[in-house]
Each structure stands twice: as structure tokens, then as C-alpha cells.
């Protein structure tokens, strides 16, 4: 039971990181980046190349991965979102474009890295440590701590800084934000870069759990969207809560049914959550003033 709870929190943290990044982009552009799971996969691939294959020290490798993936996310913006202009709500072009980009990323990964999943060392070694009588892998603790730190960091950035103010303003209206002398495009680019950095970190954190391969995030990516929706799209606290909730429920359900049903259970949870509270647990159905 405790073991299930613990592994649920670990996977839940990963879903939360995905949901957080999906939300940042959603809130300023109104689009859902369907290539996000694949960007996380690329993060894992780059980390593998830098840290395992090239033997670059972990921290430096982490920074390099973050920079590289942030650049990939910015390129993704220019290729799949920018061509459709500011008024993304009016077209669904971005939907096909981001889905397509995801497929392109997977195929590039297959070509360059091969289809064979590769191992990635867990952070802090593979020796179990004992906390409150429960045996834990240090890596799991790192996942929880890093996720919590990132979520807190975002809460502060979005709630307390001028950048956060400008991001919130951009979610309301690009043109009114421009009238303040703020380049809404720069804000959107910043958000894409931030989503790339979170994706890189998420990629490094799941690699030891899933192994590194082109398909590693195929279902995890979908669960990230699920977590974002459960929490209320566009809400970063909700993303965090939604991710953890999904991870924990999924793990608890696993104690009752055979592992083959894992993904089915996760999607069932998502469907139930969405039908009970379509606007998400933290979502508010805004009324527009006329």
C-alpha cells in the first residue's frame, strides 16, 4: 500500500511536470502542445547523449539538456504555432501541426538513436535508503523534491513578478498587452522556452524509470494532458494537483488489477474526473462581462 502510494507520487510528479509545461503554453497561446510528450522524450535522448554517452558531468549535462530542449521548443513555436498568427482560436492548424511535430520528433529519434531502449542511471545511485521505515530509491525522493521546487518556483514567478504579470496579461489579450508596450510574442517565446526547460528536467527524471527510447513518452504524454485537464487547463496549481492525483489513483488501482490494465485504468480515471468536473478541480468557469 505504502509502496503503491510512493510510486504513485513519483509518476504523479512526472505527470504534474508535463501538465505544468502544457499549461504555460496553453495560458498564453490558447493551444495545447500535442508534441509535448515527444519533447520530453527528446530531453531524455539529449541527456543520455550528454551524460551517459559523452560522459559530461551530471549538472553540466543537465544544463546543456535544458538549453537544447528550450531551443527545440522555440523552434517548435516558429514551425507550428507562429504560422497561424495571434488568433489561434480561429484555426485548428496548430492542432495538426503540433501532432505532426510529435511524429516527426519520434521518427528523428528512431533514426538517430535507434529503437532499442537504453538504461539511464538513477540520480543518487541505486542503493535503497530508509525513511520512516519505508525503503526508497534516492531517485524517487529527487523526483518529488525537484517537482515540488519547480511548482513552487512557478507559483512565485507567475504570482509575484512582472514577468508573471505580463504572462497573465498575454493570456487575457495579446493586443491589449502590446498596448502596454510589452511584446506579446516575446512573452510567448519565453513560455515555450520555459516549457522546454521543464520538459528537459522531466525527461531526465523519468529516464531511469522508463528507460530511454523513442516511444518512452507515448502514453505518459497523454497522461500529462489528462493531468492538465483534471487540474483545470491553464491553472498551474491545478496541474500539480491533477498530476499527483492521477499518479496516486493509478498506482492504488494497480494494487487491485493486473498491470496490463494500467493505462486503461489511468484513462478511466481521466474520463471520470472530466465528466464529474469538466472545468477541472481548480478550474473556474469564467463568466464574461458584456
Amino acid at each position, binding site marked *: 500500500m505504502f509502496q503503491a502510494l510512493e510510486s504513485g507520487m513519483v509518476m504523479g510528479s512526472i505527470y504534474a511536470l508535463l501538465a505544468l509545461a502544457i499549461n504555460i503554453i496553453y495560458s498564453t497561446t490558447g493551444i495545447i502542445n500535442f508534441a509535448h510528450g515527444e519533447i520530453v522524450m527528446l530531453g531524455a535522448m539529449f541527456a543520455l547523449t550528454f551524460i551517459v554517452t559523452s560522459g559530461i558531468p551530471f549538472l553540466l549535462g543537465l544544463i546543456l539538456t535544458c538549453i537544447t530542449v528550450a531551443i527545440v521548443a522555440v523552434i517548435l513555436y516558429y514551425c507550428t504555432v507562429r504560422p497561424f498568427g495571434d488568433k489561434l482560436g480561429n484555426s485548428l492548424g496548430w492542432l495538426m501541426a503540433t501532432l505532426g511535430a510529435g511524429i516527426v520528433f519520434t521518427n528523428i529519434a528512431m533514426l538517430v538513436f535507434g529503437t532499442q531502449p537504453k538504461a539511464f542511471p538513477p540520480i543518487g545511485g541505486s542503493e535503497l535508503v530508509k525513511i520512516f521505515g519505508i525503503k526508497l530509491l534516492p531517485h524517487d525522493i529527487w523526483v518529488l523534491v525537484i517537482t515540488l521546487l519547480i511548482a513552487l518556483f512557478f507559483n512565485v514567478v507567475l504570482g509575484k513578478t512582472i514577468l508573471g504579470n*505580463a504572462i*497573465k496579461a498575454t493570456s*487575457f489579450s495579446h493586443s*491589449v*498587452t*502590446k*498596448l*502596454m508596450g510589452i511584446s506579446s510574442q516575446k512573452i510567448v517565446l519565453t513560455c515555450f522556452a520555459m516549457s522546454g526547460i521543464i520538459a528537459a528536467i522531466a525527461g531526465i527524471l523519468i529516464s531511469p524509470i522508463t528507460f530511454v527510447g523513442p516511444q518512452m513518452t507515448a502514453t505518459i504524454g497523454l497522461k500529462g494532458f489528462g493531468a492538465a485537464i483534471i487540474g483545470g487547463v491553464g491553472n498551474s496549481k491545478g496541474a500539480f494537483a491533477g498530476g499527483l492525483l492521477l499518479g496516486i489513483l493509478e498506482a492504488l488501482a494497480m494494487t487491485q488489477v493486473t498491470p496490463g490494465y494500467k493505462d486503461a485504468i489511468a484513462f478511466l480515471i481521466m474520463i471520470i474526473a472530466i465528466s464529474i468536473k469538466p472545468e477541472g478541480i481548480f478550474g473556474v468557469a469564467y463568466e464574461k462581462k458584456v
Partner: protein
Amino acid sequence: MLKVNNIHVSYGKVEIIKQVSFEVNQGEVVVIIGANGAGKTTIMKTVTGLLKPTQGEILFEGQNIARTPAEKIVKLGLAMCPEGRQVFPQHTVYENLVLGGYLIRKDKPMFQKNIEQMYNLFPILKERSKQVAGTLSGGEQQMLAIARAMMSNPKLLLLDEPSAGLAPIYVKNIFDMIQKLSEQGTTILLVEQMANMALKIADRAYVLETGRIALGGTAVEIMNDPKVVESYLGSKKY
């Protein structure tokens, strides 16, 4: 200060603004009046750079800004209070003012001075500084929208129908404020359907009819033009 020369503006293939020219001189209050759908908002958006003209030039202090991005035009000293107020509904009153002062954020004393000035001009904003703007009344939102635009120290302030949807008492209030801002040295370009009130505080006026300037002159001339009296001043709404 602002000189608009023969601009044409289209949405897709539909040309809405046809060969429009007008100017605003330093220190003036200039009003553009016109019926619904005449193209007033389209002109304002074009001057602020949110829309680009297909032809013509827009000179602001001698510099052609027809191709300059909106966020750079604000830097030159041209701010707009957009149609429908458009305050940031999820930000507090204070945060709205902070965003309005984004360009002067590094100059802390100036920023503080501007905030104080706006609180003096609109005391209700000080009272409501921590309230979320979406929950303000329409009149309070309009004051906030004007104050937000004034935070960047504009030389020229554009106001798009500041009186729309407001109770008469608020309308009077808003026009008094506009006059005050003008007396304090801000040049003003105003778009209004409340032609009566607007012409009273204006120096000069233009009449816009289906995307063309039909008439231009001093406020007094326009006020006494028989056609204007008939179409825009005839039936007093209150």
C-alpha cells in the same frame, strides 16, 4: 504631432477605411465622431499599430509609424485606452497600473510619482487598489483603463469611446477627467458617439462616414453644421 495621410485599412479583402487623412496638433483635443461601424475603432487600432494600413502614412512627431509594431509605438509616447475598457480582469487594480507603467518600470521614482498622480486623479482606484479589476463597475473600469494608459507618460492619448455604456453621471465625470488631462499637457485624440459632450471639450473635430472623412473643422463649426446636428446631435439620448 500626429499626421495621418491617406490611409486605407482592410480586414481581409474588405476595405473599411478609405483614404482617411487627419491631424492632431500639440495640446489639442481632437474628436472623431461617427455612427456604429463607421470605422472609428479601426482607425484607432491602425494609429496604435495593432492594424497595418494597406496604403498611406502615419507620422508621429515626423516619424512614419505605419509599419512599426504596436509595442514600439507605445515607447514613442502614444498610448491608447481601447474600446470596451479592456482592463486585465484577473489582475488587481494596482497590477493593471503596473502593466500600464511597464515601460517606465526601471525608473522607480517616476513610476511612484505616476501612481500617486493617478490615485489623486481617480481616488476610487486607490481605495480599490487590491481589488481584482474584473469585479469593478463599468465606470471604475473606465477610469482604470484611462489611468493605465496614462502610466507610460504618453504625449498623445487615444481614447476609444470612453463613455460607452456608462451612466450619465459617470459620463460627465469621464469628460471632466479628459479635460483635466488635456489641461495638464496631454494631447488627446478621442472617438465618441456622445457627440454633444465630446464636441464641448474638443478643439477640432472630424466626422467619419463609412470609412471616409466627410467633414472636418473646429468643434464649434462642426457643432453648428446642419447635417451634424441632424445626424449626430439631433436626438439627445438623455
